[in-house]
């Protein structure tokens, strides 16, 4: 009698082992810490119930971080996705040097994020190339420079983020576009469909799963934006670029308030979860592409 478990358990074991061995302990431990006043160097955390969580919602810095993070997510994902799709459609056409374009657009996403952030710190400087370009085009630039003016600091980082990431999603979209059966397009041509009709009724539906994937990955990543802030502005000026994960880092590793930081991280986690579940519902989780 073949045990019902056997092959399935074996198949699942890599995840079970990884989860139990590496993630369960850190997750449960940090969840526990969020209910304490753990201050890292002091080895005796006291249980304080949900105080950290209550404190969060009356903490103006956290609320600012939440606002900035949301702005960032909502302000980058649509652009990144649309630009990636738009350019993928073009690159997918019969143009010369396709591979060259693919590699070129992909290049920013394989370069170290820290280095890119440093490069952009220079480009955005008051005497940097972007300021020079703006003056050349007759656009006025912020008085204190892009990264030091409260109104432009976050948008500057958002722009950089779109620049860095669209290439990666472009490759993913290209992969998805390649998988669309050519026969469908040919049949549509014969029926006299226009470009827009082909796009709307063939391309888009086939791209739905990939779009969901891209938006999902990008959302999870964008909510956790950290490195750019750490390298470029450290949350300033006046907290205009403070994001939640940066605040978690600051509270936990700089101010040593790891209990509070853990609570903040779990609140963020909860928000990401809700957002992602919503997205999966809107785009349809696991639906096929039958037409």
């Amino acid at each position, binding site marked *: 009698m073949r*045990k019902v*478990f*056997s092959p399935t*358990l*074996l198949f699942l*074991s890599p995840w079970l*082992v990884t989860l139990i*061995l590496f993630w369960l302990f850190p997750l449960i431990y940090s969840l526990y810490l969020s209910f304490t006043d753990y201050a*890292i*160097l*002091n080895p005796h955390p006291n249980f304080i119930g949900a105080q950290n969580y209550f404190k969060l919602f009356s903490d103006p810095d956290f609320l600012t971080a939440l606002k900035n993070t949301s702005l960032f997510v909502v302000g980058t994902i649509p652009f990144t996705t649309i630009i990636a799709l738009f350019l993928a459609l073009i690159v997918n056409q019969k143009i010369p040097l396709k591979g060259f374009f693919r590699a070129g657009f992909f290049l920013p996403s394989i370069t170290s994020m820290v280095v890119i952030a440093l490069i952009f*710190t*220079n480009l955005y*400087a*008051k*005497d940097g190339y972007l300021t020079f370009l703006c003056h050349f085009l007759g656009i006025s630039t912020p008085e*204190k*420079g892009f990264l*030091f003016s*409260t109104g432009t600091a976050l948008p500057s980082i958002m722009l950089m983020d779109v620049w860095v990431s669209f290439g990666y999603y472009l490759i993913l979209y290209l992969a998805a576009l390649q998988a669309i059966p050519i026969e469908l397009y040919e049949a549509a041509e014969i029926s006299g469909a226009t470009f827009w009709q082909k796009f709307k009724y063939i391309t888009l539906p086939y791209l739905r799963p990939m779009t969901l994937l891209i938006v999902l990955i990008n959302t999870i990543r964008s909510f956790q934006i950290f490195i750019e802030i750490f390298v470029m502005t*450290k*949350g*300033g*000026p*006046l907290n205009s670029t403070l994001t939640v994960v940066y605040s978690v880092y600051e509270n936990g*590793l*700089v*101010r*040593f308030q*790891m209990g509070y930081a853990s609570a903040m991280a779990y609140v963020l986690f909860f928000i990401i979860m809700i957002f992602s579940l919503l997205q999966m519902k809107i785009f349809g989780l696991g639906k096929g592409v039958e037409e």
Partner: protein
Amino acid sequence: MPRKIGTILAILILFSGCSQTESDKTVLQFWQFWTDPQVKPTVIKLIQKFEQENPGIKVTATDLTWSNGHEKIVVAFASNSAPDVLELGSDWVPEFSSQNVLLNLSPAVDSIKNRFRMWEPGIFDGKIFAFPWMLDTRVLFYNKDLMSQAGLDPKHPPQIWNELLSYAKKINQPQKQIYGFGANAAERHRLYKKFLPFLWGNGGKILSEDNTTCLINSKEAVDALNFYIELTKFGLLDTQRRLDEVFMQGKIGFVISGGWLLKEIQKNNLPLNFGVVLMPKPDKNRGAPASFAGGEFLVISQKTKHPQEALKLVRFLTRLDNCLELCKAIGTPSPADTSAIYDDYYQNNPYLKIFQEQLKFSFSPPATPKWVYIEEKIERAIEEAMYGRKTPLQALNDAKVEIDKLLKSP
């Protein structure tokens, strides 16, 4: 099925560290930040020299990055795996000293205390937890050519606040990308180091002697902030790194910077006609040419299994000859040993001589465990004044209220 899991777990456990070989030598873990290819060989050489002088001890050095070393240190202490000997920057020393994780060095150093300076950051509750190793400070760099071009005499760099302000005004021509004063923008953990010298120079204090009351809204402090904000209007506002770079391009008249800038200019052989001078005083007969004192300290983890050997390493590294060797490799810092100033290396170098002179007027923030919070509030106040959200007086008043609250809470 449980058997299979058991086997897997057993294999994993087998993989785990059973390969530690017994050694009859004491092994010390030493974490430090000097990984620059120009400096590291000296560190290695010193370690080898130490091992030769102490045949029973072996030292394993680990590199820390300036950008993220703090995280690594915190994680190590948090998980009870801190190194035996560790280098800490002066801004981090108070937060570790007060947490009962460092070894109390008082018994070992009380007799030699007077030979070294800048113990303050490492003192907590009357006990010493950190050994000052290398000190540095910040001075005023000035561009002689830009001064001449603006009709100023490069042989007389500004010595008082008004001179600095008016000279900066004269040099400042932003449309030509020439700037008078290089001011630090809202750069966390850096901004306060540029403002506090003016506060101290004007006679202001951050906290009262007993560290219980905040004095940051005193008249001296408000005047200092007013002056600083005024200064920022006649120059370039950017991060320290960029200010240094633009100064090296010959486009800034005056910038407050440290030894690292001197080293960069000399390393790159730049055709820059510059000089360094003490920080300006508020007025000819008032105040002091104060600056910010920074430095590297050596600390020993309280949980070390080899306190005696660790102490030996610390004494070795802070010994004048060894410390000097390292300082020379780095370029500009000074050993904390008070007799270092007499070494030819500093006496014969006009620039370094100024740095040594400036050290006499250099201060560090109060060594309270709450410093990281106080620093944030101070920087916030400066930012608010800089961005016109509050007047300097308002900003500092609000900061005082918040810091007082901080000081009273446990």
